[in-house]
């Protein structure tokens, strides 16, 4: 028998929190992207688990769209990071603080 829905949801919540931890502590821009991937992955687990429990196809469709959107987002992120690297030979996101106040 498949484990209950709640287990999946709790696992997903845990992964989401792990992702936020990386999001908040990482300094390298690519490492931040990786953390965001962990968060996005948590979303997919939620969706597929719900889809299974509800016997509803929409969750799986949603998952596919969510995956595509995340990929597109990563592509953009990497393009901007490459641009940043060219500017200052460094991809530490927290160094980009020329504008503030």
């Amino acid at each position, binding site marked *: 028998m498949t484990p209950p829905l709640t287990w999946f949801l709790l696992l997903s919540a845990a992964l989401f929190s792990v992702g936020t931890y990386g999001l908040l*502590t990482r300094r390298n821009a690519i490492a*931040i992207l990786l953390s965001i991937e962990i968060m996005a992955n948590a979303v997919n687990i939620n969706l597929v688990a719900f889809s299974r429990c509800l016997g509803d196809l929409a969750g799986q469709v949603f998952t596919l769209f969510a995956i595509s959107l995340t990929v597109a987002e990563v592509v953009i992120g990497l393009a901007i990071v490459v641009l940043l690297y060219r500017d200052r030979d460094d991809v530490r996101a927290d160094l*980009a603080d020329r504008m503030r106040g």
Partner: protein
Amino acid sequence: MIPLALFVVLGPVAGFLLLAGLPVLRRSGLAAGVVSSAVALATLVAAIVLLVGVEPGAAPVIAQIDWLPHQGEAFARLGVRVDGTSAVMGAVVALIASAVQVYSLGYMASEGRPSIGRYFAWQSLFLFSMQTLVFAPDLLQAFLGWELVGLCSYLLIGFYYQKPSAAKAAVKAFWVTKFADMGLLTGLVLMRWQVGSFAWEAVQPGWTATAIALLVFLGAMGKSAQFPLHVWLPDAMEGPTPVSALLHAATMVAAGVYLVVRTWPLFEASGVALHVVAWVGAITVVVAGLTAMVQDDIKKVLAYSTCSQLGYMVAALGAGSPVAGLFHLTNHAFFKALLFLAAGAAIHAVHSNSIWEMGGLWRSLKGASLLFLVGAAALIGLPGFSGFFSKDFALEALAESHLWGPFALALGGVALTGFYVGRVVVVAFFRRPAKERGRLHTPLVMTVPMTVLAVLAVVGGLLGGPIAGWLGGAYHFHVTPEGLTATVLALGGLGLATWIYGYEGGRRLVVLAAPAGAFIRSGLLDRFYETAWRQGLLVVAHAAGWFDRYVVDGVMNLVAWSVLEGSERTRRIQTGRIPDYVLAVVVAFVVLAAWGAVSGMSGCGSTP
């Protein structure tokens, strides 16, 4: 009747658009002034014809179009409303504006040509805005006009933008009046919400009437420079003198009084609001009067005097007599505009605002001095002059409604008025001048409008009956004890000033102080007065001035400073670092999610 009213309102905006849209005309300088003045004079004729055509006691004639839909009925309308009140005010505004514009043709002649064009464009815009306010069929349109005159005031005060003080004064005027306007706006919203209408007559008894009336009055306090929101008016004197005459003496500052007159049903429904109005007016009379006593700048004296006189109008309203308020408003418009214009002629001639640098103008600038004296006599309220009648009427109203506190303050204000006017007259016009100067000249284009105003300042008292008729009230002049007391007090103040300041200068006005003079010469009272003056009144006056500058002004500045300082500090949380920005997002997410969990728990399991 409606076409005439529309012309009075829209004529000036045509003038403004002409000047704004035709750079050639605007840059031509005086030609722009002539166009603008001609339009103003045309609207004056129309306004007078309109006024004469209004039957006393007739129902208002209203023409308006829907402006903004709002779930069924129109939310806002635009149009004109012709009745006694608006016709009187409209005529007064058109008259003063015409006089000031014609006068400006001479006064501003030495400015650069584009400046002149700009000046007259703003003048036309102001006239339009003011008439929009005056003929407004409801409170909302009045508010639009109200905001527009505020904008014109800002632009005209800052006219000499090269002067930092002028720029600062313009900003300050905007700030203080804006603050008050927010009260008015809140009142508007409250009115719409509770009463469901912006109509002038709209009223709903109970706490709503009081709340709305007080909020409307807060707006009026700002515009009509009532204590403690009067601080902007003296600074506003940085603008050109004709502007001071028009906006900051005769018309715009009177808009607050007019607004209260218009929303009269609201105030009538609330005894509390009337009491507040009476007290604020009376306190302003005294505070501003005291402050005026120690000013050296002739325009500042007149500015504080304006506050003080507006206080009389407001107090009269508080005493339940809109007729007295509007009557004094009309007379004050005449004589205070005259005083400013005459003072302008003096400033123009001696190139200084300080009364101590003037002196002896009576000899060197005969015409303007004579006109100033006429205005001064009306301001003091010498018997026979216009101010005498309307001020007495206001005092009478206070006495009749048994508001003895405000009455006493207002009566004291009469003496203060006599004093500060006497001081200016003696020092600036009769004292021996610091340096000899030859005969100075005032151009005819400046003299004629002043003469017209002077005639009105003398005979303005005759307008009491007609104005009362148009407003549906009654006015008959009769001698009263309070009138006599006021006259004696005014003469006393005048005499004291003459005696103190006229010592080595000419004693030409000493005859006016004769009753006091007899005592004074006895020698015994000499020292008493000297001491009382030094120790008492002057200290109080200086204290009032100090209070004004450091406490009232200071509180305003402190507020501004703390806002600036606070925002400088807050700025630092914008660190520029991405991790901090993301942290804010995540923390907000957690808090919102926690709210969601808690609120979802409350109805868990239920289906709506």
